[in-house]
């Protein structure tokens, strides 16, 4: 006998027909819900996301089927949970489709049947494994939502309803199979390793009871499945569609690059104060959120109890869209999808001041931890910056302490009212002079590197020491370089991330013009923000350079044997922990070079903070926050300082002047007497350098 089974066993033909007819309703609802969402996205601004399609598709497969970002060492529970639900659900879906193909296509139309033999046995096995995975995954989901309840998750109706429904569907499926096995005495029953034991238990029941139960369970299972399908487009279960779409259409520019506002002079509107001001892709992206809360895990504002929670920001924007949804908006589904459950349609709300508060908008340090975490590639920072742009450039509304900063940037080219003529005054403390780009070019010569010092490194006493240390390293290694000196000004990053795109473009344009006029090819920066802006954003303005952060250059120089390090130093055998600047590590992936440089220094004993590398925790200084007042009870920099102190390190290594300031303040506030110092990697290396050969020479002459 060939293994197989009768499809629609024990189901009256009328029931089968009813099933097919009823199926039209949920599929129609799904199609309508999807179409409605697409219509809403199309209200957004144009943005080209259709380039590099091959790369996009491969990336989508990697991030969905292969779970590229979903399963991560730091998110194992959620990753395994999703993989189980995904594999189980997809297996069962494919199984159902196979049966449909057999009954409705190959048999009636082609007179050909394949649902038997080894294929059938394998099918049984696979469906049982799938069902089991689905039960496992959904139970994990419910257990986490109901029992573990991590702080990053806020549970709304959908978060329980959907896994519960899937769990019920899987159980119903097994019951259905067990009842059939019990009735038919199926000789291959053991292949259904889950249902078989259940079937054995049910065998004692009379045949007609079994048949009734079988029909009843079939009907209930059908109705559950149809309701579930109908509900997909109105719940977070839409995410297989929206998440796939978002991963496919995600921005594939460097993450540290913000989209510019082209043609500022003629733009009708700056930034976003209405949904329509976002791009279609941004509107689509918020619909992909499924409340996983991963964006909160390393978010400095969430972790210090501030108003901004990136998940809620995304869900509120999604909710604002849902409010406009037409007849179905505000019913359980889409409103629940905002994570802030409410019955009925939400009232008319503004985007800024309604769905999202100005406090939330100004809280963000633009650290990017949320974007690094989000498994569906939602980009929170560009959403926030769009709203900042609107506040600053359309509404002239921003925290009042920013007015003098903007004015200083505009008039003096630096944020803190420093005298531009004093920008290169730090060079006076050097034994060996530093050349200025203008002199180099006037002499008809060239240098390999432009050293872009940055405002803090030029003016702030503490950061000047780092600049001096770095300069000595460059001189010691015999690097040919020059600075812009008095001609340097702010690169534009703070203004840009504070939403003042106009000012940012002015500042950046000035630097690009200068650097292009001097025919600069390679740039080394002493600041993670200068680094990111010049590397990732200057190409927008026609500034294309090879940009390298000083920690990368130091690493290269050590590896090439161009720096000779001493054993003796004032930080002999110290425990050092390294703080990754967001704009270096997370945004630009420079995490190993600084560590490698540190490890080669004989006196350094490197230890890690729990949150490191791409999962580092922000110092609190990015996105202009170093220039705004942090009034809240828990300061971000103090939180990070505590983490650094807990490692027992005596030196916190930094590689960005903003981090340095924030961490020094943080450590002083948390434990004044700790004696823990914050030193830039350049300082640690410089203090370990053997007496600079060149200087020694000069002295002997």
């Amino acid at each position, binding site marked *: 006998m060939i293994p197989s089974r009768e499809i629609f066993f024990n189901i009256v033909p009328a029931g089968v027909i009813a099933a097919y007819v009823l199926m039209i309703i949920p599929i129609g609802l799904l199609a309508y819900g999807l179409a409605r969402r697409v219509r809403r996205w199309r209200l957004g601004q144009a943005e080209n996301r259709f380039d590099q399609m091959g790369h996009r598709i491969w990336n989508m497969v990697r991030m969905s089927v292969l779970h590229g970002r979903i399963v991560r060492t730091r998110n194992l529970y959620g990753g395994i949970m999703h993989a189980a639900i995904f594999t189980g659900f997809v297996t069962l879906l494919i199984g159902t489709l196979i049966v449909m193909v057999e009954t409705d296509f190959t048999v009636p139309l082609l007179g050909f049947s394949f649902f038997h033999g080894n294929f059938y046995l394998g099918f049984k096995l696979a469906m049982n494994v799938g069902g089991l995975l689905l039960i496992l995954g959904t139970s994990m989901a419910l257990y986490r939502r109901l029992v573990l309840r991590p702080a990053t998750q806020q549970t709304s109706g959908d978060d329980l309803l959907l896994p519960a429904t899937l769990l019920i569907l899987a159980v119903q499926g097994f019951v259905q199979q067990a009842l059939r096995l019990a009735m038919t005495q199926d000789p291959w029953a053991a292949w259904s390793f889950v249902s078989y034991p259940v079937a054995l238990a049910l065998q004692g029941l009379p045949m007609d009871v079994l048949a009734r139960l079988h029909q009843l369970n079939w009907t209930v299972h059908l109705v559950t499945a149809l309701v579930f399908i109908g509900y997909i487009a109105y719940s977070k279960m839409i995410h297989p569609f929206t998440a796939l779409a978002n991963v496919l259409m995600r921005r594939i520019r460097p993450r540290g690059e913000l989209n510019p506002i082209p043609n500022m002079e003629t733009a009708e509107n700056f930034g976003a104060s209405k949904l329509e001001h976002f791009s279609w892709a941004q509107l689509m992206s918020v619909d992909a959120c499924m409340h996983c809360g991963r964006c909160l895990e390393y978010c400095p504002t969430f972790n210090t109890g501030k108003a901004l929670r990136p998940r809620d920001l995304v869900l509120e924007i999604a909710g604002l869209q849902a409010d406009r949804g037409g007849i179905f908006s505000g019913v359980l589904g889409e409103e629940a999808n905002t994570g802030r459950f409410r019955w009925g349609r939400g009232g008319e709300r503004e985007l800024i001041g309604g769905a999202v508060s100005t406090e939330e908008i100004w809280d963000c340090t633009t650290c990017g931890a949320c974007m690094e975490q989000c498994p569906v590639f939602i980009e929170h920072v560009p959403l926030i910056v769009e709203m900042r742009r609107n506040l*600053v450039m359309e509404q*002239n509304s921003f925290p009042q302490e920013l007015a003098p900063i903007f004015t200083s940037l505009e008039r003096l080219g630096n944020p803190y009212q420093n005298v531009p003529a004093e920008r290169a005054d730090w060079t006076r403390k050097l034994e060996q002079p530093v050349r200025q780009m203008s002199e180099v070019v006037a002499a008809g010569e060239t240098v390999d590197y432009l050293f872009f010092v940055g405002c803090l490194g030029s003016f702030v006493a503490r950061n000047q020491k780092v600049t001096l240390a770095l300069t000595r390293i460059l001189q010691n290694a015999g690097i040919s370089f020059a600075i812009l000196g008095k001609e340097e000004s702010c690169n534009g990053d703070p203004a840009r991330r504070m939403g003042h795109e106009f000012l940012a473009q002015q500042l950046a344009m000035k630097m690009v013009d200068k650097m292009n006029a001097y025919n600069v090819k390679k740039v080394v920066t002493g600041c993670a923000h200068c680094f990111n802006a010049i590397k990732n954003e200057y190409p927008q303005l026609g500034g294309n350079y090879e940009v390298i952060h000083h920690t990368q250059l130091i690493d290269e120089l050590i590896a090439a044997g161009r720096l000779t390090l001493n054993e003796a130093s004032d930080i002999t055998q110290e425990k050092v922990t390294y703080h990754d600047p967001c704009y270096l590590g997370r945004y630009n992936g420079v995490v190993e070079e600084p560590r490698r440089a540190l490890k080669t220094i004989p006196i350094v004993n490197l230890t890690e903070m729990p949150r490191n590398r791409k999962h580092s925790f922000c110092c609190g200084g990015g996105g202009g926050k170093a220039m705004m007042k942090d009034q809240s009870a828990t300061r971000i920099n103090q939180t990070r300082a505590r983490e650094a102190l807990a490692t027992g390190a005596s030196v916190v290594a930094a590689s960005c002047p903003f981090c340095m300031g924030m961490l020094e303040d943080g450590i002083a506030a948390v434990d004044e007497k700790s004696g823990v110092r914050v030193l830039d990697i350049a300082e640690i290396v410089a203090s370990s350098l053997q007496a600079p050969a060149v200087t020694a020479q000069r002295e002997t002459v």
Partner: protein
Amino acid sequence: MNIVVTIKQVADPNIPPSHIQLDPSGKRIVSPFGIPPVMNGYDANALEEALRLKEKHGGKVTALGLGDDSSRESLKRAIAMGADTAMLINDPDLLNADSAGVGRALAAAIRKIGSFDLILCGRQASDTDGGQVLHWLAEALDVAAVTPVAKIESDDGKQLTVHRLVEEGYQRLRVELPALLGVSSEINEPRFPPMRGTMAAGRAMIPGWKASDLGLQPSAAKVELRNLQIQLRTSKAELIAGSSPAEQGTALADKLHELGFI
């Protein structure tokens, strides 16, 4: 309410003393590298107050300056902040005029601009701190002048009730319009120019007027500025020693006595 605000462009008062420079004639402060001149601070207060009155009553705010062509920058900033138009008297012969001459020139320009209800000036300019011009201007226009004004308490479009600063307090004065007020910094916090304004200012045309355009006869200055000098002030700190607070207090008192402060 039509308001004219006089705007003077001055060297940034926040230039560190060590960076202040004088031109070769020794009569003028020149702005050092990288620190552009600014709108006189009190004038910014005057402009802000004018803009607030305009927001309340409607009308027009005109910014009027006297200076070389570079002074257009400050007038542009006035437009960026919200002034409707701006004019510049840029006759080289008038650049070295004394307060009376400047007052007369401004008055002639205001007559050319047309009718006005209120003239708002800064109480004085931060470069010379003279505080003279506004009196000459009021005189030439034959309107009442009140200065320094710390608050406009009420206004009904015909009369203003203002607070005029006096030593240890203020006077409440009622002034008939048209009038001229010299505004002090207590009155408001000048706004940050909105971006749209800054962009509009970039495109704005600011006409330049010569003495002949204003029908002014040259007249000899009665006051002459001989030269300016930079006085660098130094400060030093001294710690008062003492083993107890009481002892330190006594030592401090002795010291202050010795220095002639008490």
